[in-house]
């Protein structure tokens, strides 16, 4: 068993002929959630609808790409009162900006199964560079990406006017993604 693993590692290192590209996102198994604090109270929310396209081959991370679009109106902040509020003008203004988008510009290997994705995050018409560390776990033909990063909501004008007070709703929002993909071998294509 150990020898087989060694062999596979060697083959992987030899240029990826046997590696697979993970590019079939399993939307029903993937989640996009966020965590924030309100009056010091830790709360969680999620986006019920989001789409992701990605191509990731651990042997060729220079070619890795990811694109993620969240349907803002599908947000669940934890309460219906909150959900009604955040689609409004002061928060996400979903009538004009219905989608939040992340487009990768590159992926860095951090060692082991740890990586970092860099890219542009666009929310409410504002685009900013972000980076998010993530882990990649491969189980057979299934590849699982788990990562998180913290954004400051005021950088994107999420919560303007009276809501700009970060003493009540904290500025930091932790975005957590869990994306399950299936591999399609590039050879089979």
């Amino acid at each position, binding site marked *: 068993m150990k020898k087989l693993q060694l062999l596979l590692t060697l083959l992987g290192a030899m240029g990826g002929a046997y590696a697979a590209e993970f590019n079939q996102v399993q939307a029903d198994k993937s989640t996009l959630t966020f965590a924030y604090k309100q009056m*010091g*109270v830790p709360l969680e929310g999620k986006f019920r609808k989001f789409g992701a396209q990605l191509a990731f081959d651990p042997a060729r991370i220079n070619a890795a790409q990811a694109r993620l679009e969240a349907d803002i109106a599908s947000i669940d902040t*934890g*309460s219906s009162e909150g959900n009604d509020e955040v689609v409004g003008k002061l928060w996400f203004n979903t009538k004009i900006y219905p989608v939040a988008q992340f487009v990768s510009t590159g992926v860095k290997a951090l060692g082991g199964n740890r990586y970092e994705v860099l890219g542009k995050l666009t929310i409410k018409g504002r685009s900013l560079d972000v980076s998010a560390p993530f882990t990649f776990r491969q189980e057979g033909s299934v590849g699982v990406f788990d990562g998180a990063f913290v954004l400051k909501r005021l950088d994107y004008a999420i919560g303007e006017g009276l809501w700009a007070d970060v003493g009540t709703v904290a500025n930091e929002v932790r975005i957590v993604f869990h994306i399950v993909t299936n591999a399609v071998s590039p050879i089979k294509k």
Partner: protein
Amino acid sequence: MNPSTRYTTTAMALHWLTALFIFTTFPLGVYMHELALSPLKLQLVSYHKWLGVTIFLLTVARLAWRATHVPPPLPETIPLWQQRAAHGLHFLLYVLLLTIPLTGWLMSSAKGFPVVYLGLVQLPDLVGKDKVLGDLLAEVHEMLNFGLLALVGMHIAAALKHHFIEHDDTLRRMLPSGKRVES
């Protein structure tokens, strides 16, 4: 007034602090409930929860005091049935001062908003997020509060009646100073 016929300073402090906090927390609860979502509402809801936890803690301290002290007796001039009614009322007040914060805490958990006391200490969620349970607990919390309102009204009316109509020492037992009413 003989000190042994008055509550101790500790007992008085706990009683009057509880009174102060009830008269803050109750109207705050009614007011914030009607507000549209805003930072102010979120702040007031938090303060309401912190006050509720404080009342619970004060009540636990008062029960500890009761367990280790004998309260000053009611004036002998009060008929036995009234004394019993007073004790029954006090018992019910203690029950509500414990169960109202408890239902508030459980309601918070069921609604998915944990209580973080003073923004520092997070209370555990004894129940998971459950909208139906949350709405039910909100009803119970409100109902118990209107029960508390009625009982506090009776408590105050009785104290004032004894003080101003009967001219006895019932209320003075809970007052920090003041001379004995000579009757």
